[in-house]
């Protein structure tokens, strides 16, 4: 593969101008440095405008409305599906289901394919580093069906052992292997295609949580040969309220519907109902119309800049932050070396609680996340109650990464013990 050309300083400046929110200041009056992108990204005006356009110029409900606005909206909605199908190289638009978000997508699989195929004693394999969205639905499925959830551990260097994956697959013969393409805490990226092919060899169905991958790299579902892939709009410059469930057509066809209502039926009577064809089958009710148009605008935007170039840019920033942090006494970086991860740097300070770090960084204008980042099992396995996370995206700059490292030193100073004495008021 060719090395993509890096984003130039001028390009990043141009990109930043497309995100008006980046010009603002935080409560303390400091200039904003937004490093909370793994929780949710910002969006360019092209995405915001695409949604406003829809509402201002051609909106009506979709699906069989026989009038101009409805036909235009339906065309835009289905065009958005096509854009997303191209974004992940799905072999058919019918394989792309619009949902309310990655969490809704995973729950859809758990409550349809899961309820249909799992029973007492069956195993779901996942990893200890999953987001709660890729754990709790399986716990719930286990409660309903009696199946078991097995967690693949993480190695001491915060990576996964593919040998262990193989061993677990052979030992537990799971019906499903559900794993994240990139950890939202560690930044670790397992070899997705390899894991899928290993799973295939023991006839396990695979679900790839692409929430932290789709915004940063091409998830080619055909090349990966994934059975299910999920991700959210708001983590890839798109709107809230929308996510994608990709599923292989044959699988989706074989599954019962999930939510019942308008749009997902072919026929309803007092006795029962017949299900519609894909993709309608899984899109009950008025869908997130403007949001679908928004996520398509986001996919277009990212594609125009080039996902590979975005990933490279993040990688550069991540290296600055990661190596800078490692030089600071008392800092423990939680995650592999930057060459093995995406644009995420998590860490902890022995002497300062994550909430205090985040709070103090905010007063310097820097937005990061502190806590368990919806990965309690991972944190427990690492014997941490919380960590602090900086996560980069295309609009962040090397200066921000450097400023972040110095800010951590300032935080340490702020909370250093200085022999203070409590005085009663």
């Amino acid at each position, binding site marked *: 593969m060719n090395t993509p050309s890096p984003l130039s300083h001028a390009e990043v400046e141009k990109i930043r101008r497309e995100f008006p929110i980046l010009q603002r200041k935080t409560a303390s009056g400091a200039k904003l440095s937004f490093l909370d992108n793994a929780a949710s990204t910002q969006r360019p005006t092209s995405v915001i405008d695409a949604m406003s356009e829809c509402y201002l110029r051609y909106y009506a409900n979709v*699906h*069989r409305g026989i009038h*101009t606005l409805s036909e235009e909206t339906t065309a835009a909605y289905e065009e958005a599906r096509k854009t997303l199908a191209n974004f992940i190289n799905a072999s058919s638009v019918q394989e792309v289901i619009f949902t309310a978000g990655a969490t809704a997508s995973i729950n859809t699989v758990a409550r349809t394919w899961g309820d249909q195929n799992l029973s007492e004693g069956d195993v779901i394999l996942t990893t200890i580093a999953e987001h709660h969205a890729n754990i709790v639905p399986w716990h719930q499925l286990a409660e309903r069906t009696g199946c078991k959830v097995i967690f693949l551990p993480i190695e001491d260097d915060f990576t996964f052992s593919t040998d262990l994956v193989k061993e677990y697959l052979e030992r537990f013969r799971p019906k499903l292997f559900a794993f994240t393409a990139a950890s939202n805490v560690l930044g670790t990226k397992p070899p997705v295609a390899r894991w899928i092919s290993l799973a295939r060899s023991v006839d396990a169905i695979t679900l790839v949580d692409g929430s932290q991958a789709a915004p940063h790299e091409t998830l080619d579902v055909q090349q990966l040969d994934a059975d299910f892939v999920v991700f959210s709009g708001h983590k890839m410059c798109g709107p809230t309220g929308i996510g994608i469930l990709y599923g292989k057509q044959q699988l989706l066809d074989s599954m019962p519907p999930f939510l019942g209502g308008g749009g997902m039926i*072919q026929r309803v009577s007092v006795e029962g109902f017949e299900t*519609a064809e894909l993709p*309608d089958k899984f899109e009950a009710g008025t869908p997130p119309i403007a949001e679908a148009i928004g996520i398509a605008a986001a996919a277009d935007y990212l594609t125009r800049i080039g996902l590979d170039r975005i990933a490279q840019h993040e990688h550069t920033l991540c290296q600055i932050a990661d190596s800078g942090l490692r030089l600071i006494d008392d800092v423990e970086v939680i995650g592999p070396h930057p060459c093995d991860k995406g644009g995420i740097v998590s860490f902890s300070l022995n002497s300062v609680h994550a909430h205090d770090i985040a709070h103090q960084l905010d007063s310097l204008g820097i937005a990061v996340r502190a806590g368990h980042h919806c990965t309690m099992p991972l944190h427990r396995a690492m014997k941490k109650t919380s960590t602090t996370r900086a996560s980069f995206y295309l609009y962040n700059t090397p200066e921000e990464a450097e400023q972040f490292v110095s800010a951590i030193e300032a935080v340490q100073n702020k909370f250093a013990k200085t022999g203070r004495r409590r005085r009663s008021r």
Partner: protein
Amino acid sequence: MASEQDIYEEHVLDHYEDPYHRGDLDHATHSHEADNPLCGDVIQIDLKIGADDTIEEAWFNGDGCVISQASASMLIETIEGKTLDELRDFSADEMLKLFGPKLTPNRQKCCLLSWRVLQSAVHSPTNDSPTDDDDLPEVNFGGPSLGEES
């Protein structure tokens, strides 16, 4: 995006008001009926397929919107005398072209109903059918899917 042409052009209304071979065909060799439950359009097609795999006679019956009924009439008029091979090559796009005025995706469903029924009819021998003919070529079947309105 939507068509600005009047889809109810004279030719269409003519077929609607004075359809070709609307009615039943006695001694049909093949027959099929289907509806589009989401619109309520219904079409039945009766065929007499000869020994040389030619459509000797075709009739339709139905109920529904102008597009579904006029397009059925046009289809029936067109296929008589055609061979099954020719029919197999008759795509959804050609059906839409036969109809004439440009249709939005929603109305294409109305127009393609008779075309779909025809695909099934050639595979649906009646009691009057000679029994040896059903290793027919696979007829291609595609076109837009049927969605429900809100």
